């Protein structure tokens, strides 16, 4: 219905855990494919949560169920991540010492265990108390989404769309891109384009998935989820942003309503908002203005495609 463009990596029947007892390389393969599938499910879930730019209030039950699914995946990835790091280091140590291949990683067992005990953190895990994913404001979600945001929150909110296992630096940069796209999708960018770009991102993510297993990852996740909730009016440097957002009406447009000229209430257009965003206050922790501008060009490009077709 919504994600026509998303490459569905998550094959049906594949959501179950991979079979145990397979010989060495198959195990690795299936655990990698499981991670990919899980990542794909996570991305799908996050998209679903974001697509609430409708005129009617989104279904709370559905949102809660999706958010719980995301939380579950996050928990598992948290444990998996730390285990992966540990076992890979073990494997390297063993390999260098004995010259033989690593023993079958026990992370799959852990994964099983974790799924059966949701919510339990592993002892000694760097993310002793990761703040779990929280969908901002189930109530009045739309006003709160747009209201002023802490400097960190903008990036982390955006970054939450990025693969969880990306490195910190990478997160911020791509997070900015995704943040813009998120704004786009709220202001009427087509879903297809979001998905197409998601797809590209996903491939990048997958590579990252293999690479990033450092402790930094756990920290990134905590940061990503910890500040997902957009808090209300913070005094200080964000006040300019606040003023900016305070004018924006909470009723986002569908692309359809935009094109047909129907609007729920008089509003700033998407270009106006992004223009002002790039011109005005750009907090130092956000990417440079140049990033914003390139994203604006991207937005232009996307809009051209839509309007052209």
């Amino acid at each position, binding site marked *: 219905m919504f994600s026509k463009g998303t490459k569905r990596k998550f094959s049906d029947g594949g959501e179950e855990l991979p079979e145990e007892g397979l010989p060495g390389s198959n195990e690795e393969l299936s655990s990698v494919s499981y991670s990919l599938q899980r990542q794909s499910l996570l991305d799908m879930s996050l998209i679903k949560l974001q697509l609430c730019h409708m005129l009617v209030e989104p279904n709370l039950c559905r949102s*809660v169920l999706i958010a*719980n699914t995301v939380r579950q995946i996050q928990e598992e990835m948290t444990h998996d991540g730390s285990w992966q790091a540990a076992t890979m280091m073990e494997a390297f140590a063993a390999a260098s010492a004995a010259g033989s291949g690593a023993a079958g990683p026990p992370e799959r067992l852990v994964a099983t265990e974790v799924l*059966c005990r949701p919510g339990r953190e592993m002892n000694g895990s760097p993310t002793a108390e990761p703040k779990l994913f929280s969908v901002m404001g189930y109530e009045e979600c739309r006003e709160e989404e747009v209201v002023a945001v802490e400097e960190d929150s903008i990036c982390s909110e955006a970054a939450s769309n990025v693969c969880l296992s990306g490195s910190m630096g990478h997160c911020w940069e791509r997070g900015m891109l995704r943040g813009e796209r998120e704004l786009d999708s709220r202001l009427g960018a087509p879903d297809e384009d979001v998905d197409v770009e998601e797809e590209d991102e996903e491939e990048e993510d997958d590579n990252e998935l293999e690479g990033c297993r450092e402790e930094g990852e756990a920290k990134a996740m905590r940061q990503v989820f910890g500040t997902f909730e957009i808090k209300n009016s913070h005094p200080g440097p964000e006040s300019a942003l606040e003023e900016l957002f305070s004018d924006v009406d909470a009723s986002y447009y569908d692309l359809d309503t935009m094109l047909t000229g129907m609007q729920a209430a008089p509003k700033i257009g998407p270009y106006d908002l992004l223009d002002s965003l790039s011109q005005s206050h750009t907090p130092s922790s956000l990417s440079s203005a140049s990033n914003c501008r390139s994203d604006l060009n991207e937005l232009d490009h996307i809009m051209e495609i839509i309007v052209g077709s």
Partner: protein
Amino acid sequence: MAGVGGGNDFQWCFSQVKGAIDEDVAEADIISTVEFNYTGDLLATGDKGGRVVIFQREQESKNRPLSRGEYNVYSTFQSHEPEFDYLKSLEIEEKINKIRWLPQQNAAHFLLSTNDKTIKLWKISERDKRAEGYNLKDEDGRLRDPFRITSLRVPVLMPMDLMVEASPRRIFANAHTYHINSISVNSDHETYLSADDLRINLWHLEITDRSFNIVDIKPANMEELTEVITAAECHPHQCNVFVYSSSKGTIRLCDMRAGALCDRHSKFFEEPEDPSSRSFFSEIISSISDVKFSHSGRYMMTRDYLSVKVWDLNMENRPVETYQVHEYLRSKLCSLYENDCIFDKFECCWNGSDSAIMTGSYNNFFRMFDRNTRRDITLEASRENSKPRAILKPRKVCTGGKRKKDEISVDSLDFNKKILHTAWHPKENVIAVAATNNLYIFQDKIN
């Protein structure tokens, strides 16, 4: 195989279908609730356009003693209109979420209908007589000059064409922040409850400006929200007891005598999870979409995505019966999550004697389970099987391997044709099945 719901010779036949035949279905015509009244003579439907249509069963005629009474349109009215919440800049849909009849106390009929935010009590009354011979006005309604009147007469009631009027008698508004998913009339016939995602309110039918909040599961911090209320119902005989189900697959039974606020349950029903079948979708498919007490009040039935469970109110740790509705969908959960079908809320219903239960599925299929014989049957609501009194042929979904003749494979199922709402006549074997914008009525075959 023999049908379900009666003896071994039982078979279901097509009786009627209501609604447009067009391929293009207008969104407003999609039926969103179906409900028989207490006698079964009236059948009410609500749609996404906020309209209520009531069908009445014709009296059996002497000319055709073998044909059961047909349901014909009795009254149509606009119950709810779309509204706009200016504070949140959000539309409030006019879709009728639920209709519940009140027990009949006089010549008029009363029902409660609700959309996401407002509940209305409607009075449906008949008018088949008209007063004629007024003194102060003419037949056309023009006032007569009092000085011209030389004699007085008593107005006489003359018969007229039957007119059915629906008028809103009470409007219960502004009590729900979240979307109302259930209403249920209490057995005391004076109160009723309404449930939204996070709260349940108790109303008196006569009082519209206030209601009592009896359940509130809203957390202080909304970020901590992980569970919502999905359905609620009053016990059919004990006016102090009600149940509510949650998105985590649990049911709580509460006793209003225990306290003003029923946040603490009296009984907690949950089936322990099977760890071997756990997946990321386990919680979503465990979410209960409907809960219904049996007519006897001894059992209750819950519907989750793949199954129907019957619970004995005296046993909390597991259901007494579990029926698989469409287990073949378990391997398709990811696709169903992607296209949002996994969030479809199917309803379920008991027959009058509590010996059989019915629920809907996809591809316009619906399923019936006989609790005594443990037999089940899958039937289809389609225009192809709509010859008068045509016997419905059982359908079968092929899950793998070779597809037999007349079977349909899982991949061919039409997930846009979903039967979410069904109703069973309280006394007879007559069922109403809502298939998108069409209402099908089936009844048992008269041998």
